[in-house]
Every structure is written in C-alpha cells, then in structure tokens.
C-alpha cells in the first residue's frame, strides 16, 4: 500500500507541512508516510479492511493543523513564521479583494464625507482627500489585474464624478463668473459624458441579443416629465404650489435647455456604465449611480443652476446643512452599503435589489428631511413634504431604474457573471442565506 496515493492522507500531509521549506517538508512527509504505512499494516493485521485501516490510522495522527502549528514552531524562526503567515494570508486577502477594497474605500468615503461634507460637495473644485485615495485604488487595480477590476468600481465611479470639476479647474480660479455659473456647468459635463455614453452604448449594442426593452423607453420618456415637474412645483409655508404660469405663452421654451441638460445628466451616467456592465455585470451600476448622485443630484442640482423660474432666470440657492445631509446620506449608501450588499449578492436579481434598496430607502429619508431646507420653508406641512419626497426620489431613482432595466437585458455576460470571475466569491453560502432560501414544507 502506498500511503502517498491515499488522497485523505495526502491532504493531511499537505496541511501539516504547509509553510515549511520544500526539503524539510519532504523529509517530514517521508517520516509521516512511514508512520502511516506501519499503522495501516497494524490495523489490517487486526482484521480491519484496507479503507477502515486507513481511516483509523489517519484518525490516530490527529489534527493536521495542530501538527502544522507545532512543526512550524520547531522548524521556523520567528521571522520565517511571520513570512509564512503572510504567505498564508496574502492569497486569502487577494481572493477577498473585492470585499476588502470596497470596504476600505467605503470607509475612506465615510470618513471624508462625514468629516468634511461641505468640502466634499463644494463643486469638487478642490482636490478632496478622497480623490488621491480613489486614484490609488484605480492604479492598483490596473497594475495588479491589468484592467479596471470590479473592486475598483466605487473609486472609478467617484473619479468619474469629478470629471467636470477637473475640467473647470483649467478655466481658472474665477468660480463666480459666467463661465462657472452657466457655460461650464451647462456644456462641459454633457459634452464629456455624452461622448463617453456614445462609446458605452455602441459597445453595449454590439453584444445585445435582444431589443432594448419597452420599459427602458418608458423610463426615458418619464425623465423630462419628472424634471419639468420638479421645476414647476414649489413648496411654501402654505403647502404645494404649481407654477403653471411658467407654462404660459412661450415661457416654457426657456426651460427646454435645462430639461435636455438634465436628461443628459440622467441618461449619460447609465450609458457610461454599460461598457463595464457588459464585461462585469450589474455591479458596474455603481459607476452610473455614483456619477448620477454626484453630478445630477449634488453638483448639477437644479437649485444651483440658472433656471427659468417664476418668469425670470434665477440663480442657485445657498448651501445648507440640510442639503449637505441630503447629499451625504445617499453618498454613504452608494459608496458603502450598496457595494457591500452587491458583493454578497449571487445573482443578477440580488445585485439589482442591492443597487436599489439602499438608494431608495436613503433617498426617501433624505428628501423628506431635506424638503424644508431645499425650499427654504420653515413649516412645509405634510402634503408638501410628501410631494417633495416623491418628486425628488423619483427623479433620483430614474437612472437607477434605467440602469437595472438595460443591464438586465444586455448581453448574456451581463446577466450572471461568475462571482469568482468578479473577485466576489467572498461570502460562501452562509447558513443565513441558506435559511432564507429554504422554503417551508
């Protein structure tokens, strides 16, 4: 009987001698093999079958991990043990890189957003502390995996949101001039984002096996209606007022550029994510979602831009703490809760829910809380709060719905990439998840 051909014993040997030098491990393996062979022969002589003798001999050897620990203490110096431990740890960290990187980036976002939310939302004109961190994640991803890895998506999404702010920097420090307030916000983001979205849509269409779902067109049609609606609704101390006077005559034409611009802000981030989504699945929704929240909800929020309102062009309103909270909370959901939820999602459906649920919950809460601050109303009343919450949440959710609708109907690779492929084989089916799936009999 050759003990080396017993798979259970080979596994035991491999575990027991793991981390020792090759020569030392070979010597020790030979010694254990002799022992095992003697033990098997003794059990067979006592009347055991070959397989039962092997099982008994293996049980006598005891726990391989205990032996491994003892052998390492004898044969390795403290430094070698440390290196061995790092060797053991490194592949495990690498296997769980998606979770670790996402959690680290989420933690960094949490610290930056909570610690300095005003800075974070101040047009990103400054180099905020999270930008170099995000850059480090993206560079690490390109160097280590030679592609934008899934675990770098939150960072990629964050950097994407800074594109237009970086472009503005090149226009000089005069942040209050007409260039800053009108030309740059209105033209530069759409130009950059639409260029990227055209590339995205082309790449996505090439792999598309089915037609674009009717639901997607419906959502696209809803976008201008909702955007126009947010311009027409105003909260006052007395409740909700619909400014229908802005629709009279040709006044409505004045808001057309703004509506088109806003549509671009909604559709473009979704389209940008399609390239990555085609390769990496719905997880790529982080990019459009990130771009959406920061570009549309935060930076390009209608309250900060010149809109034709109440018969005249009006400028942005002041920043308030409430506004900061309204932006920070969705940002936290986006950069921390959503990625972690997505990482443990196993199917497209679960990832879609992961993309939706935190955003929906947080947006509803944040918009309810932020309604009064946004409209500078001291006592808006429940009807006004509800109207504002619904409109703002709907506007913010449209790109999420569009992204999920399109991604789910994309090329086959978009449907269910293997978790291992994505570096997402993080959490094995835990008992909780198994329990959740178990149906009552």
């Amino acid at each position, binding site marked *: 009987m050759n003990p080396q051909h017993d798979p259970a014993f080979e596994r*035991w040997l491999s575990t*027991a001698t793991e981390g020792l030098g090759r020569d030392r491990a070979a*010597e*020790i393996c*030979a*010694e*254990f093999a*002799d*022992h095992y062979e*003697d*033990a098997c022969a*003794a059990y067979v002589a006592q009347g055991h079958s070959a397989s039962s003798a092997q099982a008994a001999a293996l049980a*006598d*050897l*005891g*726990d*391989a991990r*205990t*032996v491994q620990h*003892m*052998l390492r*203490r*004898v*044969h390795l110096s403290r430094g070698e043990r440390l290196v061995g431990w790092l060797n053991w740890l490194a592949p495990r960290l690498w296997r769980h890189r998606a979770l670790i990187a996402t959690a680290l980036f989420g933690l960094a976002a949490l610290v930056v957003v909570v610690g300095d939310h005003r800075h974070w939302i101040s047009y990103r004109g400054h180099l905020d502390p999270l930008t170099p961190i995000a850059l480090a994640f993206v560079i690490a991803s390109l160097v280590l995996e030679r592609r934008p890895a899934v675990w770098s998506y939150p960072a990629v999404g964050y950097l994407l949101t800074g594109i237009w702010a970086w472009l503005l920097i090149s226009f000089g420090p005069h942040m209050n001039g007409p260039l800053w307030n009108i030309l740059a916000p209105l033209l530069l983001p759409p130009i950059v984002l639409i260029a990227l979205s055209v590339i995205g849509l082309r790449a996505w269409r090439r792999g598309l096996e089915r037609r674009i779902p009717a639901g997607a067109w419906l959502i696209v049609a809803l976008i201008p209606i909702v955007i126009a609606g947010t311009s027409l609704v105003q909260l006052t101390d007395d409740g909700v007022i619909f400014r229908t006077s802005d629709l009279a005559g040709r006044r409505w034409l004045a808001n057309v550029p703004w509506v088109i611009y806003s549509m671009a802000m909604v559709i473009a981030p979704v389209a940008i994510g399609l390239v990555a989504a085609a390769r990496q699945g719905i997880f790529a929704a982080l990019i459009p979602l990130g771009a959406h929240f920061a570009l549309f909800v935060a930076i390009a929020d209608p309250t900060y831009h010149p809109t034709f309102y109440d018969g005249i062009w009006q400028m942005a309103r002041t920043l308030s703490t409430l506004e900061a909270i309204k932006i920070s909370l969705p940002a936290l959901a986006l950069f921390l809760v959503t990625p972690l939820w997505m990482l443990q999602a196993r199917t497209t459906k679960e990832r879609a829910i992961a993309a939706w649920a935190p955003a929906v919950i947080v947006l509803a809460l944040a918009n309810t809380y932020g309604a009064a601050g946004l409209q500078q109303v001291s006592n808006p009343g429940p009807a006004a709060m509800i109207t504002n919450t619904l409109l703002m949440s709907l506007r913010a959710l449209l790109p999420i719905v569009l992204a999920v609708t399109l991604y789910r109907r994309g090329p086959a690779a978009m449907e269910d990439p293997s978790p291992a492929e994505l570096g997402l084989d993080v959490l094995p089916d835990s008992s909780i998840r198994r329990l959740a799936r178990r149906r009552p009999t």
Partner: protein
Amino acid sequence: MNVKGSLQLLILNALSRGASYGYEIAKEIKAKSRDVLDFQEGTLYPTLHKLEKEALIEAYSAEVDGRRRRYYRLTQAGERALSEERREWEAYVGAVNAVLKEAS
C-alpha cells in the same frame, strides 16, 4: 488521558531503552500505559524534532528489513535531561499524592 506536557519525558524514557522510530515509540507509550495515555500520534514528530534540535536526541537513517527508517537515540545530554525530568516528575507526583492522601 492527555499526555500534554509530559510527552517529552515519555519519549526520552522510551529512547532510554535503545534507538527507536516514531511509530514504535508511539505504540510503546500506548501499550505500556495500557492505552490510558493517549495522544495525537502526529504530534510526536514535532516533539522528536524539538528534542533533536536541543541535542537531547539524535537522528539517523537505517535500513531494517528492507525499509529505510529514521531512527532516534538518546544523547548524553538527553540522558541527563531524562534523569532530571524523571526526578522532577516523581517529586511532582509525590507531592500531588501527598495532598490527595491528606484530603481523603
């Protein structure tokens, strides 16, 4: 009964009767204790290697009945260590017995 802590003494004692190899040492300890002393046989080897590093035993290869095995034998330092450990063990057992007798 677990032999943790006393395995070293048991191994040195087993080798005091002559050179032996791992499996034989394990069987001898179990047989002589009538299977009362039990231990994971895999842990015998790290202990043997530790004793070898401390120069209390030495290893050599020998071919017996057509099989090449790694044998261990006691060194002079090992004999001294065995006497010392035996004395300590007997003192320990004597002290525990004395306490137990007094208690009963």
